[in-house]
Protein backbone atom coordinates (compact mmCIF):
# COMPACT_ATOMS: atom_id res chain seq x y z
CA UNK A 1 0.00 0.00 0.00
CA UNK A 2 1.43 3.38 -0.97
CA UNK A 3 0.93 6.61 0.94
CA UNK A 4 -1.14 9.27 -0.78
CA UNK A 5 -0.16 12.95 -0.34
CA UNK A 6 -2.70 14.66 1.91
CA UNK A 7 -3.40 17.47 -0.57
CA UNK A 8 -4.61 15.09 -3.27
CA UNK A 9 -8.35 14.38 -3.30
CA UNK A 10 -8.95 10.91 -2.02
CA UNK A 11 -10.50 8.27 -4.17
CA UNK A 12 -11.89 4.92 -3.16
CA UNK A 13 -10.61 3.34 -6.35
CA UNK A 14 -7.39 1.38 -6.32
CA UNK A 15 -4.66 2.08 -8.94
CA UNK A 16 -5.43 -1.31 -10.48
CA UNK A 17 -9.09 -0.44 -10.77
CA UNK A 18 -8.27 2.83 -12.46
CA UNK A 19 -6.02 1.11 -14.99
CA UNK A 20 -8.57 -1.59 -15.65
CA UNK A 21 -11.20 1.01 -16.32
CA UNK A 22 -9.01 2.61 -18.97
CA UNK A 23 -7.96 -0.71 -20.46
CA UNK A 24 -11.23 -2.51 -20.70
CA UNK A 25 -13.02 0.67 -21.78
CA UNK A 26 -12.09 2.31 -25.01
CA UNK A 27 -9.50 4.95 -24.53
CA UNK A 28 -6.52 3.05 -23.16
CA UNK A 29 -6.10 0.80 -26.18
CA UNK A 30 -6.39 3.24 -29.08
CA UNK A 31 -2.95 2.52 -30.52
CA UNK A 32 -3.43 -1.25 -30.15
CA UNK A 33 -6.69 -1.04 -32.08
CA UNK A 34 -5.40 1.37 -34.75
CA UNK A 35 -2.37 -0.86 -35.33
CA UNK A 36 -4.78 -3.65 -36.23
CA UNK A 37 -7.15 -1.49 -38.30
CA UNK A 38 -4.27 -0.18 -40.41
CA UNK A 39 -2.82 -3.72 -40.70
CA UNK A 40 -6.09 -5.12 -42.08
CA UNK A 41 -6.40 -2.10 -44.39
CA UNK A 42 -2.95 -2.82 -45.84
CA UNK A 43 -3.70 -6.53 -46.31
CA UNK A 44 -6.70 -5.43 -48.41
CA UNK A 45 -4.68 -2.79 -50.27
CA UNK A 46 -1.62 -4.92 -51.08
CA UNK A 47 -3.09 -6.51 -54.23
CA UNK A 48 -4.12 -3.18 -55.86
CA UNK A 49 -0.77 -1.70 -54.75
CA UNK A 50 1.18 -4.51 -56.42
CA UNK A 51 -0.89 -4.09 -59.59
CA UNK A 52 -0.17 -0.33 -59.64
CA UNK A 53 3.57 -0.96 -59.16
CA UNK A 54 3.59 -3.50 -62.01
CA UNK A 55 1.78 -1.04 -64.28
CA UNK A 56 4.37 1.64 -63.46
CA UNK A 57 7.45 -0.52 -64.10
CA UNK A 58 9.76 0.73 -66.81
CA UNK A 59 7.74 3.87 -67.61
CA UNK A 60 9.21 7.33 -67.98
CA UNK A 61 8.27 10.25 -65.72
CA UNK A 62 5.45 11.53 -67.93
CA UNK A 63 3.89 8.07 -68.15
CA UNK A 64 4.23 7.40 -64.42
CA UNK A 65 2.82 10.83 -63.55
CA UNK A 66 -0.20 10.32 -65.78
CA UNK A 67 -0.98 6.90 -64.27
CA UNK A 68 -0.49 8.07 -60.66
CA UNK A 69 -2.71 11.08 -61.33
CA UNK A 70 -5.74 9.02 -62.33
CA UNK A 71 -8.41 9.09 -59.57
CA UNK A 72 -8.65 5.37 -58.64
CA UNK A 73 -4.87 4.95 -58.51
CA UNK A 74 -4.38 8.21 -56.58
CA UNK A 75 -6.95 7.04 -54.01
CA UNK A 76 -5.28 3.61 -53.67
CA UNK A 77 -1.93 5.35 -53.15
CA UNK A 78 -3.40 7.79 -50.60
CA UNK A 79 -5.06 5.00 -48.61
CA UNK A 80 -1.88 2.93 -48.59
CA UNK A 81 0.35 5.86 -47.63
CA UNK A 82 -1.94 6.89 -44.75
CA UNK A 83 -2.41 3.32 -43.46
CA UNK A 84 1.28 2.43 -43.71
CA UNK A 85 2.65 5.61 -42.14
CA UNK A 86 0.12 5.46 -39.31
CA UNK A 87 1.02 1.79 -38.74
CA UNK A 88 4.77 2.41 -38.77
CA UNK A 89 4.44 5.40 -36.41
CA UNK A 90 2.68 3.23 -33.80
CA UNK A 91 5.14 0.37 -34.35
CA UNK A 92 8.19 2.57 -33.89
CA UNK A 93 6.66 4.08 -30.73
CA UNK A 94 6.27 0.56 -29.29
CA UNK A 95 9.93 -0.19 -30.08
CA UNK A 96 11.05 3.08 -28.45
CA UNK A 97 8.95 2.39 -25.35
CA UNK A 98 10.42 -1.12 -25.12
CA UNK A 99 14.11 -0.24 -25.43
CA UNK A 100 14.61 3.41 -24.43
CA UNK A 101 14.46 3.62 -20.66
CA UNK A 102 15.77 7.13 -20.10
CA UNK A 103 12.64 9.26 -19.74
CA UNK A 104 13.95 12.38 -21.52
CA UNK A 105 15.52 10.47 -24.43
CA UNK A 106 12.36 8.37 -24.69
CA UNK A 107 10.10 11.44 -24.93
CA UNK A 108 12.40 13.08 -27.48
CA UNK A 109 12.51 9.87 -29.56
CA UNK A 110 8.73 9.60 -29.53
CA UNK A 111 8.48 13.23 -30.59
CA UNK A 112 11.03 12.71 -33.39
CA UNK A 113 9.05 9.65 -34.51
CA UNK A 114 5.90 11.77 -34.70
CA UNK A 115 7.64 14.54 -36.65
CA UNK A 116 9.21 12.07 -39.09
CA UNK A 117 5.94 10.22 -39.68
CA UNK A 118 3.79 13.35 -40.10
CA UNK A 119 6.35 14.91 -42.47
CA UNK A 120 6.44 11.77 -44.63
CA UNK A 121 2.64 11.50 -44.67
CA UNK A 122 2.22 15.15 -45.68
CA UNK A 123 4.98 14.97 -48.31
CA UNK A 124 3.41 11.89 -49.88
CA UNK A 125 -0.09 13.40 -49.77
CA UNK A 126 1.21 16.60 -51.33
CA UNK A 127 2.91 14.67 -54.13
CA UNK A 128 -0.23 12.62 -54.87
CA UNK A 129 -2.45 15.73 -54.90
CA UNK A 130 0.03 17.50 -57.17
CA UNK A 131 -0.01 14.55 -59.60
CA UNK A 132 -3.82 14.46 -59.52
CA UNK A 133 -4.16 18.16 -60.30
CA UNK A 134 -1.68 17.82 -63.18
CA UNK A 135 0.42 20.86 -62.21
Amino acid at each position, binding site marked *: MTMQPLSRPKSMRTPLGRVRNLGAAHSGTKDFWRQ*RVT*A*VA*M*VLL*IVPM*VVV*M*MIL*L*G*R*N*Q*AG*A*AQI*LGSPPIAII*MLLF*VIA*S*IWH*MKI*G*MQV*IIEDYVHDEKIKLMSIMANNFFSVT*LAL*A*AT*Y*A*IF*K*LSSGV
Partner: protein
Amino acid sequence: MTIRIERPLSPHIQIYRWTLTMTLSIVHRATGMALYFGTLLLVWWLFAVSSGPGAYAAVQSFTASWIGQLIAFGYTWALMHHMLSGVRHLVWDLGYGFKPAEREWLTRATLIGGILLTVLLWIVAYAIGGGR
Protein backbone atom coordinates in the same frame (compact mmCIF):
# COMPACT_ATOMS: atom_id res chain seq x y z
CA MET B 1 21.51 5.61 -0.02
CA THR B 2 19.54 2.87 -1.66
CA ILE B 3 19.88 -0.75 -0.67
CA ARG B 4 19.85 -3.23 -3.54
CA ILE B 5 17.60 -6.13 -2.76
CA GLU B 6 18.60 -9.34 -4.51
CA ARG B 7 15.24 -10.45 -5.85
CA PRO B 8 14.91 -13.64 -7.85
CA LEU B 9 14.88 -12.96 -11.59
CA SER B 10 12.55 -14.59 -14.05
CA PRO B 11 14.37 -16.62 -16.72
CA HIS B 12 15.29 -14.56 -19.74
CA ILE B 13 15.79 -15.56 -23.40
CA GLN B 14 19.25 -17.09 -22.95
CA ILE B 15 17.74 -19.71 -20.60
CA TYR B 16 15.23 -21.12 -23.06
CA ARG B 17 15.86 -23.41 -26.02
CA TRP B 18 15.85 -21.19 -29.09
CA THR B 19 12.79 -21.71 -31.33
CA LEU B 20 11.67 -20.62 -34.79
CA THR B 21 8.77 -18.65 -33.31
CA MET B 22 11.27 -16.64 -31.24
CA THR B 23 13.37 -15.91 -34.34
CA LEU B 24 10.34 -14.79 -36.30
CA SER B 25 9.18 -12.60 -33.45
CA ILE B 26 12.42 -10.64 -33.74
CA VAL B 27 12.36 -10.74 -37.54
CA HIS B 28 8.87 -9.22 -37.45
CA ARG B 29 10.21 -6.28 -35.48
CA ALA B 30 13.36 -6.00 -37.62
CA THR B 31 11.39 -6.00 -40.89
CA GLY B 32 9.06 -3.40 -39.40
CA MET B 33 12.08 -1.19 -38.64
CA ALA B 34 13.46 -1.71 -42.15
CA LEU B 35 10.09 -0.80 -43.70
CA TYR B 36 9.97 2.35 -41.54
CA PHE B 37 13.05 3.66 -43.31
CA GLY B 38 12.03 2.08 -46.61
CA THR B 39 8.96 4.31 -46.58
CA LEU B 40 11.36 7.23 -46.94
CA LEU B 41 12.39 5.79 -50.33
CA LEU B 42 8.76 5.28 -51.35
CA VAL B 43 7.96 8.92 -50.56
CA TRP B 44 11.15 10.08 -52.32
CA TRP B 45 10.02 8.18 -55.43
CA LEU B 46 6.47 9.63 -55.26
CA PHE B 47 7.89 13.11 -54.80
CA ALA B 48 10.25 12.65 -57.75
CA VAL B 49 7.41 11.59 -60.07
CA SER B 50 5.50 14.74 -59.11
CA SER B 51 8.61 16.95 -59.46
CA GLY B 52 9.58 16.23 -63.05
CA PRO B 53 11.86 14.28 -65.41
CA GLY B 54 15.14 15.39 -63.75
CA ALA B 55 14.19 14.22 -60.25
CA TYR B 56 12.69 11.02 -61.65
CA ALA B 57 15.88 10.24 -63.59
CA ALA B 58 17.85 10.51 -60.32
CA VAL B 59 15.55 7.95 -58.65
CA GLN B 60 15.72 5.66 -61.67
CA SER B 61 19.50 5.72 -61.79
CA PHE B 62 19.47 4.73 -58.11
CA THR B 63 16.89 1.94 -58.46
CA ALA B 64 18.70 0.59 -61.54
CA SER B 65 22.05 0.37 -59.68
CA TRP B 66 22.96 -2.90 -57.95
CA ILE B 67 22.63 -1.35 -54.50
CA GLY B 68 19.24 0.10 -55.46
CA GLN B 69 18.10 -3.28 -56.78
CA LEU B 70 19.30 -4.95 -53.58
CA ILE B 71 17.42 -2.45 -51.42
CA ALA B 72 14.28 -2.81 -53.54
CA PHE B 73 14.51 -6.61 -53.30
CA GLY B 74 15.08 -6.41 -49.55
CA TYR B 75 12.16 -3.99 -49.21
CA THR B 76 9.89 -6.39 -51.14
CA TRP B 77 10.87 -9.30 -48.88
CA ALA B 78 10.51 -7.20 -45.70
CA LEU B 79 7.03 -6.10 -46.81
CA MET B 80 5.86 -9.59 -47.80
CA HIS B 81 7.31 -11.20 -44.69
CA HIS B 82 5.98 -8.53 -42.33
CA MET B 83 2.54 -8.82 -43.95
CA LEU B 84 2.32 -12.62 -43.58
CA SER B 85 3.82 -12.46 -40.10
CA GLY B 86 1.26 -9.78 -39.25
CA VAL B 87 -1.58 -11.96 -40.54
CA ARG B 88 -0.25 -14.69 -38.23
CA HIS B 89 -0.48 -12.21 -35.34
CA LEU B 90 -4.05 -11.33 -36.36
CA VAL B 91 -4.92 -15.06 -36.31
CA TRP B 92 -3.47 -15.26 -32.79
CA ASP B 93 -5.37 -12.08 -31.82
CA LEU B 94 -8.59 -13.90 -32.71
CA GLY B 95 -7.57 -16.75 -30.43
CA TYR B 96 -6.70 -19.39 -33.02
CA GLY B 97 -3.47 -21.22 -33.84
CA PHE B 98 -1.97 -21.60 -30.37
CA LYS B 99 -1.62 -25.40 -30.35
CA PRO B 100 2.02 -26.54 -30.84
CA ALA B 101 1.47 -28.05 -34.30
CA GLU B 102 -0.62 -25.07 -35.51
CA ARG B 103 1.86 -22.57 -34.11
CA GLU B 104 4.82 -24.24 -35.86
CA TRP B 105 2.90 -24.66 -39.11
CA LEU B 106 1.88 -20.98 -39.14
CA THR B 107 5.42 -19.86 -38.45
CA ARG B 108 6.97 -22.03 -41.18
CA ALA B 109 4.29 -20.91 -43.65
CA THR B 110 5.11 -17.27 -42.85
CA LEU B 111 8.81 -17.75 -43.49
CA ILE B 112 8.44 -19.78 -46.68
CA GLY B 113 5.49 -17.75 -47.97
CA GLY B 114 7.38 -14.48 -47.61
CA ILE B 115 10.33 -15.76 -49.64
CA LEU B 116 8.11 -17.35 -52.32
CA LEU B 117 5.98 -14.20 -52.75
CA THR B 118 9.10 -12.04 -53.06
CA VAL B 119 10.68 -14.25 -55.72
CA LEU B 120 7.37 -14.51 -57.59
CA LEU B 121 6.86 -10.72 -57.59
CA TRP B 122 10.38 -10.14 -58.92
CA ILE B 123 9.94 -12.71 -61.69
CA VAL B 124 6.71 -10.99 -62.73
CA ALA B 125 8.34 -7.55 -62.40
CA TYR B 126 11.25 -8.52 -64.66
CA ALA B 127 8.87 -10.15 -67.17
CA ILE B 128 6.73 -6.99 -67.36
CA GLY B 129 9.36 -4.30 -66.79
CA GLY B 130 11.84 -5.84 -69.20
CA GLY B 131 9.24 -5.69 -71.95
CA ARG B 132 8.87 -1.89 -71.75
